[in-house]
């Protein structure tokens, strides 16, 4: 991971690849690297789909090693959805493979001269780029099948579906999983549209002949990794809850507390919640011969994913995540688990962010394009997007765009990006993060609950209301740091409760790179990343006014607890005071 591969898609004669040293970016990886490159090299006022924007794909610090949970890949650019900086990350195999091939990042830059579509193949011998217009408008599953036929089954793919080619703001970038299926997506912010604007359909990675990345101190690394795994396995969330039910275990809970946004964020409870819960999903998967416990990449010990089979026992999609089940489920009034699984498959196949699409369909239902609860209508709407009909072009550009097109007041977005599955009126601290994250409404931006270990910002009395702002700040710092390591965010549960597990993670990083990183160093990294991102957004024209929830969240009471979002604006403005 000592070089950056830059592909100038606007070069004479077609895209040209150049590998160079990490240079000033040495020591950065994952989100830290994508945000550093975007912040430094992309003019903030550029058009997100134009020549000046860059798409940066970066594995994490420990990707490509034997370290557990190290397979997240970060994708960064200026977002066509939010107009600000974006980092979206995904699991799957590409991070491990790209790191073993020695690349710290791939940067797609420039603007294609024609309308040819290109595929990029990278292996130990170098990089081959070829036009292949037979790939045009291929959905992700068909595309990957074609790549498998051409390059064999030892590959990993990073690709876009038709939505990315059509440069839709809800377009994702797909990463293949261990079974070579395009199920893991860098979903948020329209990163797929930026890849589409560069004319690159797929990046095929083959690390045959490459070795695992070697630590500076192999024995210490091995021992720390062992402690890290033990910590994950003994923790009740990472060792039991997540493997058994996946993230969708949250459906019943959010519904119970009245924080489950239902019917386009109109109420906090959904009558059909138990029918689409993680518990029901796991039983359905097991009964039909699928898997309720499965990893998304090699080296995963949490195994929070699974495979979902249809009624006839045939593979339909990977286990849909909580946010997906919510977006297409309760948010649209749909309690048909098979229908939701089909929507998940379609999103993956066309290359769409499941949160953005679910929220968009909720708005479309409010606009009267379909009735809440009509799963067939929802499926039809996603097909409209995949086919690129006029209606599909509207929907494919996301929740805010669709709300504007159809005159819907209730667009649950921040900075143009749809809110995920936790209503900020019921769980107000999450609303602070939705409002202030440089990424737009993003539940993962303040996900890493490691504040008590990192002690960022000092000790906070979290039981007091004013603690929400401080906590949101600290959580965003911790998350930015973990995103930069390339570790799965779910490790944060074990790190929260078990300081020795956090120490094991630090020991892994230190043994691998020969560092003496402490908790303070991790905090500094998180702050640095957030500062770069906030600075980019400021230069792109963002002010405090963009760090707000839509006004109706302050005005309209949310049942069953009849709460509104009551964190003051002046408090939101303090989140990044450090």
């Amino acid at each position, binding site marked *: 991971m000592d070089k950056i591969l830059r592909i100038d898609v606007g070069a004479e004669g077609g895209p040209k690849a150049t590998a160079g040293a990490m240079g000033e970016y040495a020591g950065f990886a994952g989100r830290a690297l994508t945000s550093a490159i975007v912040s430094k090299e992309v003019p903030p006022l550029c058009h997100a789909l134009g020549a000046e924007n860059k798409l940066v794909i970066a594995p994490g610090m420990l990707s490509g090693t034997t370290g557990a949970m190290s397979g997240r890949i970060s994708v960064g650019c200026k977002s066509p959805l939010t107009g600000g900086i974006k980092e979206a990350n995904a699991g799957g195999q590409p991070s491990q493979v790209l790191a073993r091939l020695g690349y710290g990042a791939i940067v797609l830059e420039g603007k294609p001269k024609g309308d040819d579509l290109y595929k990029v193949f990278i292996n130990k011998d170098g990089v081959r780029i070829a036009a292949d217009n037979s790939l045009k408008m291929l959905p992700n599953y068909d595309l990957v099948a074609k790549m498998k036929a051409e390059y064999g089954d030892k590959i990993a793919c990073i690709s876009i579906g038709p939505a990315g080619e059509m440069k839709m703001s809800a377009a994702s970038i797909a990463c293949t999983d261990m079974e070579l299926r395009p199920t893991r997506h860098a979903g948020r912010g329209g990163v797929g549209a930026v890849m589409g604007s560069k004319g690159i359909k797929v990046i095929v990675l083959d690390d045959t002949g490459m070795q695992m990345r070697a630590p500076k101190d192999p024995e210490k690394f091995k021992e720390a990794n062992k402690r890290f795994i033990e910590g994950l396995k003994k923790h009740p969330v990472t060792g039991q809850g*997540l493997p058994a039910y996946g993230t969708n275990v949250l459906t019943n809970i959010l519904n119970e507390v009245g924080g489950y946004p239902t019917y386009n964020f109109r109420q906090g409870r959904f009558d059909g919640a138990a029918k689409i*819960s993680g518990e029901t999903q796991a039983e359905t998967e097991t009964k039909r011969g699928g898997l309720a416990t499965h990893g998304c990449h090699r080296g995963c010990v949490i195994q929070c994913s699974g495979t979902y089979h249809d009624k006839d026992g045939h593979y339909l999609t990977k286990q849909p995540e909580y946010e997906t089940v919510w977006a297409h489920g309760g948010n649209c009034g749909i309690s048909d688990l098979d229908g939701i699984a089909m929507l998940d498959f379609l999103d993956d196949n066309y290359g769409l962010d499941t949160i953005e699409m679910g929220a968009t369909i909720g708005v479309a239902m409010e606009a009267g394009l379909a009735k809440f609860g009509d799963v067939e209508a929802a499926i039809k709407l996603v097909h409209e997007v995949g086919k690129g009909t006029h209606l599909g072009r509207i929907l494919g550009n996301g929740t805010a765009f669709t709300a504007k097109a159809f005159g819907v007041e209730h667009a649950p977005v921040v900075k143009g990006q749809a809110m995920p599955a936790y209503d900020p009126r019921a769980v*107000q601290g999450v609303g602070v993060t939705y409002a202030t994250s440089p990424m737009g409404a993003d539940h993962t931006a303040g996900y890493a609950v490691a504040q008590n270990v990192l002690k960022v910002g000092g000790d906070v009395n979290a039981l007091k209301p004013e603690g929400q702002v401080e906590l949101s700040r600290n959580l965003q710092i911790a998350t930015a740091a973990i995103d930069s390591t390339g570790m799965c965010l779910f490790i944060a549960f074990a790190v929260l409760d078990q300081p020795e597990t956090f120490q094991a993670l630090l020991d892994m990083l230190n043994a691998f790179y020969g560092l003496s990183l402490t908790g303070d160093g991790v905090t500094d990294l998180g702050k640095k990343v957030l500062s770069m991102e906030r600075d980019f957004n400021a230069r792109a024209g963002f002010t405090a006014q963009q760090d707000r929830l839509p006004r109706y969240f302050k005005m309209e009471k949310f049942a069953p607890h009849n709460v509104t979002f009551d964190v003051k604006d002046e408090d939101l403005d303090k989140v990044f005071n450090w």
Partner: protein
Amino acid sequence: MNDIADKCPQLGLVLSGAMLPRFFLLFQQGVTIRARVGCSLKAFLLEELAIRQDAVDKIQSMFLDGRPVDDLDATMVRDGSVLALSAALPGLVGATMRRGGRYASFRQTISYHEEKLQCAAGNGRVRIKLFNLIMRELGPGLLHRGVFMRTSDLMNFLSGQAEDFWQECREVILDGMPSDAGRLKDGTLLSGHQKVIFSATL
């Protein structure tokens, strides 16, 4: 309440333990039990539901009437209460739901706050919801104790069961007397009764 309950028929099934997952949807939606109420949530769990202290400790998130609970001693269970129990949960929001957790302020506007620490002790009905790993741990005990159901709801549940459920059903007992599974399946066994106390021994 007692009068109505006392007139209800008591239906019991003896089933293979493999049938436990068939009840998971019921547990998630909630089942109603008859219980002594007017006590703290802690006392209710330990004494009325007879859950061991170490098992209570594993129930990291509890919700009373749809609100996250922080203090088991300062929370009262009343007639008509709805109690939901969950094991450890993922995600930031999962962590905010923990009892007395560090992130409780994130959901302070919906947290459970007891207004009166005293209420009349007596018999009552409590709706219990079990989620995730807690279903496997507490579900069998709850079924064995017996739950109060509308007969139509029970029949909907039973009619949705595949044949293997009935093959694994070793006994059908109505008010202490062995009964015919066929009559239960066709609805005649419970006809005329609007409500039933249903139990299952797994």
